[in-house]
């Protein structure tokens, strides 16, 4: 054994020492692992403190340690700390191994003797493993200064503006004809009730006019190659059939187009739009798009009214889909959410009972620019309801649909209650399970509503029906609910019911995640690098998330995340280059047979197949060291730096305590 290993066992106050005999573990390592190279084993109250780190540094210098094992918390937390300490003392940082005796031992056990025995085993595994570590150097790659933002909702808009203002190029790619996202559909926003368009459109206009923003709407990202700092992105631009360099946005085409169709997207089926259209008046960009599917000219071969009337000859029926490639250094995904499809809860009657509305439909009803000019009316388009029920938590907090809380529905339901009272004076019933008002000004908003005479019924609605049983129910929707505050079943007759449907991941969230090489939770929300400490980064270097794509959230939180992601990206751009963890997979080409088993497996598209030589290769800058291919290669041709078979198997030998110095009896 030629290595000189230093072992450091941390007490972490009582976090570890309360359950593990740390002094005993250190003493044991000094005795029983001496023949495996352990020359010093210490225990210390807080290894991560400066004094703790100095202990290691001093030993490296004075005892000439060639390897360091710290038994403390999870590598997630302090691996960097101890690696840096080693580097300061002149030891390659990758010759340090952190074994977790807190998260994996003291915190999860209740028997001190057994926990101590396990701590010894884990430590022994670390000692065996560290022997096989090799000194590594981080990979340095330059950062391209341009950024791609995907999704032009409020989160994406905020991110794009922050970065563009700092002076670097932003490509903003939006799938719909206009940016704005869900916020553009709302009338008022809780809790301040300021007009949604009034606060959103100035930002949209700034995006449209910003010299550093290249706005690409009606477009989608179809492919992402490359890696942090050096992404190559393929954008597919759908044909608008309008030449944007000629179009002035006058709207004549839209006015003259003779055909109207139901607008299922922006107006959620409540209103109509022309075939050549802008989804709403303040759309950015101002250029319309022509919906080929419904266009009379494309169907019948005649019409071209838009072309005839367009003063600048901007209509172009020959336009084709365009493929554009962009080079960017970082990517922010802000593709938002979809509304839970309340048809999935048939007992609430959506689609069957005309006067049951979804929350987004209700937003459009309230909106002055909406299909009813802001009049809250029933499905017939004229009758003003005298009583309205608003059901919270539709599809949320329910094992059958989504177990999570959609976080905005309570507040949005209160907003609706206020708007109904304000616009119609109708009686309003809010059916809630728990009132969740944790944001700034939210609880106050709730109290304001209590004073506005809204009825609050605490209970989960069982059913919405049209079967009258009792006097006064005839011609009404009947909400059947257990009022848990009075412990009684109630049947409440109402004119109109609004379902506050929850937020759910975009229907195509998983496919989009695959294009960008990031991971989703089982629900489909994109996963952040750390739920508390790194909420806008992902496990894929250079790809950030912001807004509702990460999980249900309100506008302030979406804006904050947009700005946070922008700050992270700007930091990266400032650094000009980035050091990448050298934990990477590599393929030994003499062993690779080109069987192609590994080819499609890499979640980061890091594996390249060379048809000419029939071998596969890992691009080290793309590889994130996940180990998928390492496990899959049947030839054992791929090894992961830091995770070689030798390292893993020797760690197992250590864990099984097969390496111990026999005790003399």
């Amino acid at each position, binding site marked *: 054994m030629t290595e000189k290993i230093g072992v450091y066992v941390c007490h972490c106050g009582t976090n570890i020492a309360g359950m593990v005999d740390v002094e005993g573990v250190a003493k044991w390592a000094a005795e029983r692992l001496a023949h495996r190279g352990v020359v010093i084993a210490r225990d210390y109250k807080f290894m991560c403190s400066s004094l703790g780190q100095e202990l290691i540094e001093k030993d490296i210098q004075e005892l000439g340690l060639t390897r360091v094992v710290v038994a403390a918390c999870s590598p997630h937390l302090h691996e960097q700390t101890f690696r840096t300490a080693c580097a300061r003392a002149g030891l390659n940082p990758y010759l340090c191994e952190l074994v977790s005796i807190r998260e994996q031992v003291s915190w999860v056990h209740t028997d001190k003797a057994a926990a101590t025995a396990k701590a010894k085993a884990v430590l022994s595994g670390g000692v065996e493993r560290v022997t096989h570590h090799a000194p590594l150097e981080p990979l340095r790659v330059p950062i391209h200064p341009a950024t791609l933002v995907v999704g032009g909702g409020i989160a994406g808009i905020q991110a794009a503006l922050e970065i563009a203002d700092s002076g670097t190029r932003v490509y903003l790619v939006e799938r719909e004809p206009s940016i704005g996202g869900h916020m553009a559909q709302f009338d008022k926003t809780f809790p301040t009730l300021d007009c949604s368009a009034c606060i959103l459109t100035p930002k949209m206009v700034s995006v449209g006019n910003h010299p550093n923003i290249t706005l690409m709407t009606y477009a989608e990202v179809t492919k992402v190659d490359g890696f942090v700092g050096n992404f190559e992105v393929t954008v597919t631009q759908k044909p608008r059939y309008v030449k944007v360099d000629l179009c002035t946005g006058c709207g004549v085409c839209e006015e003259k187009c003779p055909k109207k169709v139901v607008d299922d997207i922006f107006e959620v089926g409540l209103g109509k739009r022309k075939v050549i259209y802008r989804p709403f008046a303040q759309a950015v960009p101002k250029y319309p798009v022509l919906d080929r599917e419904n266009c009379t000219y494309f169907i019948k071969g005649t019409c071209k009214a838009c072309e005839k009337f367009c003063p600048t000859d901007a209509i172009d029926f020959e336009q084709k889909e365009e493929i554009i490639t962009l080079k960017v250094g970082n990517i922010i995904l802000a593709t938002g959410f979809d509304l839970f499809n309340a048809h999935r809860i048939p007992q609430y009657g959506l689609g069957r009972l005309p006067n049951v509305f979804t929350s987004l439909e209700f937003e459009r009803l309230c909106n002055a620019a909406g299909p009813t000019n802001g009049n809250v009316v029933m499905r017939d388009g004229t009758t003003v309801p005298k009583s309205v029920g608003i059901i919270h938590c539709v599809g949320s907090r329910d094992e059958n649909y989504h177990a999570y809380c959609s976080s905005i529905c309570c507040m949005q339901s209160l907003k609706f209650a206020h708007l109904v009272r304000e616009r119609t004076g109708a009686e309003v019933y809010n059916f809630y399970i728990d009132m969740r008002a944790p944001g700034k000004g939210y609880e106050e908003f709730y109290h304001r509503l209590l004073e506005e005479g809204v009825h609050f019924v605490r209970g989960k609605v069982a059913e919405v029906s049209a079967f009258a049983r009792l006097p006064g129910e005839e011609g009404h929707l009947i909400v059947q609910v257990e009022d848990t505050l009075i412990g009684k079943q109630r049947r409440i007759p109402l004119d109109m019911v609004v379902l506050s449907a929850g937020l759910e991941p975009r229907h195509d969230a998983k496919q989009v995640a695959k294009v960008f090489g990031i991971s989703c939770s089982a629900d489909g929300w994109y996963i952040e690098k750390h739920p508390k400490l790194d909420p806008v980064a992902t496990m894929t270097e250079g790809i950030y998330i912001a807004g509702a794509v990460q999980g249900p959230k309100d506008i302030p939180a979406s804006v904050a995340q947009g700005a946070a992601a922008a700050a992270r990206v700007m930091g990266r751009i400032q650094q000009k280059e980035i050091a990448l963890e050298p934990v990477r997979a590599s393929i030994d080409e003499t*062993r690779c047979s080109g*069987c*192609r*088993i590994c080819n499609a497996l890499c979640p980061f598209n890091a594996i390249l197949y060379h048809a000419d030589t029939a071998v596969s290769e890992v691009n080290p800058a793309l590889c994130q060291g996940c180990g998928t291919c390492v496990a899959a290669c*049947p*030839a*054992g041709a791929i090894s992961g730096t830091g995770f070689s078979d030798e390292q893993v*198997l020797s760690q197992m030998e250590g864990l099984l305590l097969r390496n111990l110095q026999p005790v003399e009896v």
Partner: protein
Amino acid sequence: MTANGKPKFAMYWAAACGGCEIAVLNIHEKILDVDANFDVVFWPVAMDAKYKDVEAMPDQSITLCLFNGAIRNSENRHIAELLRRKSKILVAFGSCACEGGFPALSNLTTREETLRTAFSTVSTDNPQNLRPQPNYTVPEGELDIPHMYSVVRPLDQAVPVDYYMPGCPPESEQIAAVVELVIKALKGEATLPAAGSVIGAGHSTVCDECTRTRNEKKITGFTRIQDFRPDPALCLLEQGILCNGPATRNGCTARCPMAGVPCVGCYGPTDGARDFGGRLMSAVASVIDSTDPQEIERILDQIPDPVGSFYHTNLAGSLLQASKPTWEEDQHAAHHD
């Protein structure tokens, strides 16, 4: 060296089918080189020899010993130890000696069950249900037959081995090449590879030598060659036939897959792999083209005889080795049948 100055050669057949012996004879005229360059002192299948003759030889006096077959019984072990003592270069020859071979699939069951299968099947004519007895007294005296151990072991679990030469059996060209190399090395014209190496094989896998076209792998189901007509030019695995080629050390010129028969993996794992079947299973599982757990289950259920497919010739040498009694325990148990 013997009186005639030639180095000594030995070959032995332990628990194996005999194919390895045939493969050596199948090296055609090269067999004459063996005779020209070596003094064959022990090769039960080819010449008459007694164990006591070997016992009488000085230690380390045999230069090259090719040992084929696994260690199934006490005789195998005894001769393995004897030949180890007497030989300079001991080669684990063929899959059974290297990794237990397919006889080691019996490690999946008990010794008792194996004996029952062998002596009491429908096709066995054994009305009195006789079993071989370790000891038997006849008028001439006491007879001993070897004890059958409870598990099959590869040669290196019995004695240290210098080289491994895989294959079921090893290809004749590879044998000829190895013989030639040893002859050259003896003359000082070549150097032998490092002790413990695999000889007579390559460092990549069978796919490397297979000329079938390969694409990114996506498997939607498993089938067998008798059930359809495979595309003659396309990788078998991509057609749903469990071909072990991707995990198997090359050296056989991909004879089986090229002839339309899936590779069974007889050349064993590569230098980079510790466990053949484990590697292969994780590879195959990785390319199942579905994310639906039930669908995946359904596809995997189509694999016929999973252990027999993934560990056809490697079970005893795998990380999954059967939990083994010590030799003493095993010997003892055999006596108490």
